[in-house]
């Protein structure tokens, strides 16, 4: 065999090898479960919302009923977040949220118990500040045969073995996945506060573009976090947001930034701003300030001002998020610097969003909180048609 033949054979061999590698890779890639994304798509459809109830006017909340689900509304969530420290002062952030989404109004009239119109999904995340590690998980389930659901009395919300359940005056939170698990006992230190107008949180100009929204802004939290077989006895404060609605954002809205802040002086602040595609901030952005004695003060759009100090680009999704803010509440003489404990607290599941623990500083007071940033991916699922 001449040198040329050997050379050409080698090249041919290499070429065939490369092509097969490419084909294999491509096939492997295309076989990735695209599936979840489609469930989310299904959950995001805006069709047939007319069938559902809308949040049109303030209502009288009643407990325990309003702990439980409101299946006549399309979307609902139980949103627990918190900042915790172990004995040595090692800081952790956690998030355990349950979402309910109705595919269709009403109860199915069918014989199988598996049939349901309710889909539940949940996100569980733990931020380990010292290790600069962010663990985030997602689950889906149908709200049937006891796999997932929510009940008012006794109060419980669960999806598989992630659950929130009543215990004494408070609740127990439990979640575990992979190397991370969390078990916390939460006790409310302040009464429930109603957001917006007596719990009706208007999000757009159209009537019904609103949610029913209440919060527990300071829940004493104590328990255990396990990461990679290491146990941490932790304690700190949690925050619960309860919200249900059928349509919230309106055409032209691109996403929201949501802040929950717990200050050392026993005050809490919640503000959210709805961003529009044109870069402006919606008139319906709002907030609340809860005083140490539990009394609450509504914050209208003009009562606070948020400015972004820095941005961070996710190395994985290439999406750029604001990462440091200045929150000014002139009426309360507050200028708060808000900065994530670690920049990468991006959830890359069915939804792409950023939600994480933040440290809060000012000249007079410090604190911590949670921030949620949605709608920053450009090819995104911005609301509208």
């Amino acid at each position, binding site marked *: 065999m001449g040198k040329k033949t050997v050379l050409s054979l080698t090249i041919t061999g290499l070429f065939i090898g490369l092509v097969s590698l490419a084909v294999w890779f491509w096939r492997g890639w295309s076989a990735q479960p*695209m599936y979840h994304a*489609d469930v989310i*798509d299904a959950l995001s459809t805006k069709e047939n919302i007319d069938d559902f109830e809308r949040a049109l006017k303030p209502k009288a909340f009643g407990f325990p009923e309003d702990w439980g689900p409101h299946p006549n509304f399309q979307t609902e969530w139980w949103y627990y977040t918190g900042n915790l420290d172990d004995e040595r002062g090692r800081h952790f952030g956690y998030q355990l949220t349950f979402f309910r989404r109705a595919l269709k109004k009403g109860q199915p009239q069918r014989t*199988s118990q598996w049939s349901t*119109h309710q889909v539940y999904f949940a996100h569980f995340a733990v931020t380990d500040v010292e290790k600069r590690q962010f663990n985030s998980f997602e689950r889906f389930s149908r709200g049937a045969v*006891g796999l997932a659901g929510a009940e008012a009395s006794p109060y419980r919300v669960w999806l*598989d*073995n992630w659950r929130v359940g009543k215990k004494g005056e408070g609740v127990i939170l439990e979640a575990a996945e992979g190397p991370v698990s969390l078990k916390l006992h939460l006790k409310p230190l302040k009464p429930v506060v109603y957001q917006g107008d007596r719990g009706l949180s208007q999000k757009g100009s159209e009537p019904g573009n609103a949610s029913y929204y209440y919060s527990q802004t300071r829940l004493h939290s104590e328990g255990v976090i396990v990461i990679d077989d290491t146990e941490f006895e932790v304690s700190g404060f949690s925050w619960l947001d309860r919200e249900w609605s059928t349509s919230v954002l309106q055409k032209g809205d691109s996403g929201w930034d949501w802040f929950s802040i717990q200050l050392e002086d026993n005050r809490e602040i919640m503000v959210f701003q709805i961003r529009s595609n044109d870069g402006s901030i919606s008139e319906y952005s709002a907030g609340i300030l809860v005083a140490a004695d539990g009394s609450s003060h509504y914050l209208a759009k003009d009562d606070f001002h948020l400015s972004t100090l820095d941005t961070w680009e996710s190395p994985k999704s290439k999406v750029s998020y604001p990462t440091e803010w200045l929150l000014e509440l002139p009426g309360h003489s507050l200028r708060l610097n808000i900065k994530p404990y670690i920049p990468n607290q991006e959830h890359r599941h069915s939804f792409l969003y950023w939600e994480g623990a933040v440290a809060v500083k000012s000249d007079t007071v410090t604190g911590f909180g949670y921030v949620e940033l949605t709608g920053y991916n450009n090819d995104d699922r911005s609301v509208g048609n």
Partner: protein
Amino acid sequence: MPYTSLLKISVNHSKGHPLRKLLLLLGIAIGVAVVVAVDLANESIGRSFQLSTRSITGRSTHQVIHSDNRLDQNFYTRLRTELGIRRSAPVITGYIRIDRLEGRTIRMLGIDPFADAGFRNYLGQASGTPNLETLTSLLTASNRVLISKKLAAEINIRTGDSLGINTAFGEQKVIVAGLMESDNSFTEQALSGIMLTDIATAQEILKMGDHISHVDLMLDVESTDLMNRIKETLPPGAQLVSSNARSNAVRQMSRSFELNLTALSLLALLVGMFLIYNTVTFSIVQRRIQLGTLRALGVTRSEVFVMILVETLFWGIIGSTIGILLGIVLGTGTVRLVSQTVSDLYFTLTVNQFHISIGKLIKAFLMGIGASLLSGALPALEAANIEPVQTLRRSSLERRLAVQMPVLGIVGSLFIIAGVVLLSVPTRSLRVSFGGLLLIVFGNALLVPLLIRVVMKFISAIVSLFKGVTCQMASRNIIRSMSRTSVSIASLMIAISVIVGVGTMIGSFRITVVQWLSNTIRADLYIGSANRLGRELDGDLQVELKKFEGVAKVIAIRSRQVKSGPYTGATLISLDEDTAERKWIWYEGNKAGLKEKFDQGWVFISEPMSWKYQIKGGPGTTIALDTDLGRKEFRLAGIFRDFTSDQGAVMIAGPHYKRYWGDRYVFGMSVFLEKGVDPERIGRDIERRFQDRYQLMIRSNRGLRNAAIEVFDRTFTITVALQILAGLVAFIGVLNTVMSLILERSREIGVLRANGMTVSQLGRMLMMESGLIGLLAGLFSIPLGTIMAWILVHIINKRSFGWTLDFVLQPDSYLQAILIALVSAVLAGIYPMISISRKQVAALLRTE
């Protein structure tokens, strides 16, 4: 002489004798085709089994199954909410029939899309992902299903159309919410046997109540701790099994069937090789004169040898290629026959496509070329080694054969002895058994020249009693040209003996089964579900039937598969009372006491069961079965002859069955009538009375027997295909021989004609000759076929299925064998006879 010149000679020779080359090609091609066709059938079945299993088990490592296919759905909830086992998916599955598919059954697979994504990927395939509307409608509307795009095209259905299906519970309509599609042909095929639905829909359609069929799990093999926790949670009747174990059990069912096909493929290989040997040898022997001339001209031995081999290789390649194509065509038909059989015997085979691996094709191709070269090598060596003068005289070849005959006889006998020794080895290996069978067949083939001489002496003696010269000439011609005739007769003999052997085996089998059926089926009426998709009869029906006028006794038959434990795959049958007249292989104590033992909870097992699990019987033997109350030992009362299933059967009295498996469903009922009552009339009355509540299928004693025989007969349709192939091989073989004999003797025939032999005399002589070839092959095939049948019945069948058959000679198949041999021989003689009769005497004489 340079090889190029020799090549030219070869090519010119082929041009000069297109007919001979065509026969050569046909011989090789058919030989290869037979092997390819049987392999194709075999492999398709294996692969279909695999596909059917995989489409169900998906990527799971373990499963939680239930002995009754009805697992409490709360167990699944506990698995996820309490044990936190996330990599788990619930499945509800059952068979349904689609009206538009002419009643073909396919599998309904109900899954939870939220849990299933990791397990089965039909939904995960990029192109197969249902859109959100589809998904929403699957979840929220009842009776919405997905079918494959391929299936939809086949039955002309579009998304949104309504589709009639048939389940165990009657007819129903479903709406096709979307189509599944895959760019992977493997998945695509699995998909077309499946109707996918949301688990809620499947539960409603298959009337599963609050139950699911099983749970798929992906578990870490090392997490024994977790497995133990799962085991602690299992409800009664449930089992944690590894997926491999489960699919192996399914696979096991088809194994014996595949082995039988492998046997056929081995026989096909043998017949194919003989045909090739026959054809190639002739094509060379015919050219002895030409080769002798070349040698005389100074061509060396090795040059002659190489020339012949190269030529043979050339034809071998072309013939094998044609053979492979032909085999694929033949195989398609065979696959259809086979998959029908499998569906009848085991379970609905959802994939009817046929597969053959490149490996198998290469094997057949190499077999064709190898057999050609081997067949060519012997005569080529011979031709090369003989002195040029000798090659010009064919008589030298005959003389040599006469000298070799005793040697051939001794070698043949040795082969037969080796075969017998191999068969008497007490092993379950079917390879050994088939090896022995092949040795015996081959040894017999070597004995053929000797046999021809003996038999022909006898025939010549008879023929000499007649006055006709032509007859005597014909019979002597056979002996004179034994170097050709013996090979031809041997290959024809083998082909025909396969017909006799398989025919006798099936005949024996059938007679045994008919006898067994009449002993087992004693009741006047048999009542079953009209739909074999599920069970819907229950104890209430039995109670009501007992009150029916004219009914003397009703015996409920309950049955289930053993799904776990040492006897997985066997059938458990419960009878209120055993009325059959059984043939016992073994029984405990005295025969009269068996009934009492049975009522006390002792069990009977079938002969295949005792064979499969090596349960020899003997006092104190017990059988461990997994019951709903845990594993339990049952005492063995007897082993009976049975042909219901090669997987084995355990028979237990009704009350004990109900106690351990608490089954309220009834598989069927035997109804005994009072004397003088017309079974047909009662049958119609019963059907009418219960038509609102049950879909009954009522069969009379005779009707059931006939139905059973029908299934039996269909099972063996594959052998009809084999017989046709064998007949084809026989025909081509004789055609080749007779053609060659006549063409080669053209000068001799010319001399005869010149000396005054008329065309009709010539015709008679040639006909006699080919008829004699056929007759001899037919005669020889009878003892060989009978031996083959004996081995098939007493050794192969016993070793692969574990049942004993009565060996019954089949005179019909003997007659059939001789007829096929004679007819194909005579038919094969017609064309050469006509062509030679037409030739001028001068032309015939011109050879020199």
